[in-house]
């Protein structure tokens, strides 16, 4: 655990808003990415991340400074994003075209990185919510299986399974990009 985040959290618990501001700065990228992984939409993701930071500040006295701040915050972010999704009935996966990421339309010579990223985003959106969170927390944010299990409130074995299935489904969905991106992911 970083000494900085622990110190900042203790100062914030004592009512130091500047310290909390530094924590927001440290974790805003991570919180926004995780929220966006759940909600699909960047604006919704930012709203959820903001809700999470406000909630974290309100309940900061419940945080144990001897433990890492990141997993504690990510649990709040995951809950805030899931709550927002339930409230707004956001179904990003349904809104996205099936043909964008599937095997129907293959890349041609003019296909660029942007098109690949759009296809990737679409494939990600079609994953079950928990798999999206698990693969994001593991492969993007670098949390361990144990930490993700704690964040999502599920057994470690389920986290491993979710990460595996998410990776496999992403790889399958993007097979048509193999030649273009073989060195990258597929």
């Amino acid at each position, binding site marked *: 655990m970083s000494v900085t985040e622990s110190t900042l959290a203790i100062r914030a618990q004592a*009512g130091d*808003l500047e310290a909390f*501001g530094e924590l927001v700065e440290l974790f*805003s*990228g991570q919180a926004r990415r995780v929220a966006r992984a759940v909600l699909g939409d960047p604006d919704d993701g930012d709203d959820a991340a903001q809700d999470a930071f*406000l909630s974290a500040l309100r309940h900061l006295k419940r945080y144990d400074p001897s433990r890492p701040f990141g997993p504690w915050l990510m649990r709040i972010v995951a809950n805030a994003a899931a709550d927002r999704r339930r409230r707004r009935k956001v179904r990003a996966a349904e809104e996205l075209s099936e043909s964008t990421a599937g095997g129907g339309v293959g890349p041609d010579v003019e296909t660029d990185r942007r098109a690949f990223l759009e296809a990737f985003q679409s494939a990600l959106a079609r994953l079950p919510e928990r798999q999206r969170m698990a693969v994001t927390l593991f*492969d*993007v944010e670098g949390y361990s299986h144990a930490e993700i299990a704690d964040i999502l409130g599920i057994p470690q074995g389920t986290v491993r399974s979710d990460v595996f299935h998410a990776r496999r489904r992403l790889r399958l969905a993007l097979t048509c990009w193999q030649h273009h991106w073989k060195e990258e992911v597929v």
Partner: protein
Amino acid sequence: MRHSPFDHRPWRDLGRVLHEVLEAGDNRVFVTRVMAEIRALDVRPFRSDWLEVLGAWARPGLAAAAALVALTIGLTISSRTTVAVAETTANDALQASTEASVLTVAANPPDVGFLLAIFPER
């Protein structure tokens, strides 16, 4: 080297693309927005919800009240029992007993063994 979905180590290439896809823009703007919201709503970590304060007070309060009630009931029962025992005479006990009332209301004469049992030898 190709990465396998079975691999239980972070898949850096996948992570890099995911990171790019999920990146939501300028973090400074977001941080400013969050801090402005916190100041506008006057959110503070040390301010407890009134329910939590009430709950914190209620738990020891209820325990103390329960202990007091139990003590009062115990003392009341104890004192009443003592008084009742002290005021009861041998005559009262005899009149209250079912066996003795049987002697006065029975149509047939009592059994000798029964009488000997009620009035033991001195």
